């Protein structure tokens, strides 16, 4: 598929990095390709902005940062403002629709919205909002396969939360399929 660049942004506590880990692991371990995740976050451990960059390639990732983002996932308005300028002209934008109001997009850019926090609360805990979003990402982007993603979720969350997380993933996935059709 060549190089695919994904950027995820939100604030500390939303599990942004874990999203990148799961995505990268799905692609590199369960789909056998290569993925480099880089992260940046705010002061020491908490608060502030937080973002992850995932570069997906068939072969070894050399330059590890995103410059032309294929897919931007944002869960705070600030992240949207900061990262949108690097979205490709034909890139896709995924948003937590209750937290982010995007401005006008370029003609070939597409936006996909989901109330992932509210869905997560329904699933059981607001904390799994990120996994809901990952399910949604899997559905609407088609970049990584659903099975690989589910296995990556399974192997990345605390064992006593696997069920809840998979439920969250599936809810996000289904929401995506229902709202935007199968990819």
């Amino acid at each position: 598929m060549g190089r695919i660049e994904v950027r995820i942004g939100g604030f500390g506590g939303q599990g942004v990095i874990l999203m990148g880990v799961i995505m990268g692991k799905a692609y590199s371990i369960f789909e056998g390709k290569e993925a480099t995740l880089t992260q940046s976050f705010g002061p020491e451990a908490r608060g502030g902005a937080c973002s992850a960059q995932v570069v997906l390639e068939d072969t070894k990732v050399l330059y590890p940062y995103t410059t032309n983002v294929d897919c931007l996932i944002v869960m705070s308005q600030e992240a949207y403002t900061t990262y949108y300028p690097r979205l490709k002209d034909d890139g896709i934008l995924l948003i937590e629709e209750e937290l982010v109001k995007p401005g006008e997009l370029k003609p070939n850019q597409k936006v996909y919205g989901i109330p992932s926090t509210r869905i997560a609360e329904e699933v059981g805990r607001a904390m799994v909002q990120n996994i809901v979003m990952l399910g949604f990402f899997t559905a609407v982007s088609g970049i990584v396969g659903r099975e690989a993603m589910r296995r990556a979720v399974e192997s990345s969350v605390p064992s006593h939360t696997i069920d809840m997380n998979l439920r969250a993933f599936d809810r996000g996935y289904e929401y995506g399929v229902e709202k935007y059709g199968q990819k």
Partner: protein
Amino acid sequence: MATAEKTKKKKFRGVVHVLPERCKGCRVCVEFCPTGAITMSDGFNSRGFHYPEFTYPEKCTGCELCGMYCPDFAIYGYREKIGEGE
């Protein structure tokens, strides 16, 4: 005594101010309000948190506890005189 107290109470009412944008939705104020005067709103603030609302002003004694507990300096209760004359 009881009557005296009641009279006193009437001289003041408890008032609460909330700054929703500072709130992180921890519910501590609601939990430790001795009179149940405040409740959490359904709405989110811009960072995705529910915040307290001054739902039952009549219950509030202006005891200040919500303000002392709030870790985010997002709420403050105080007593306000009702009418100068009395």
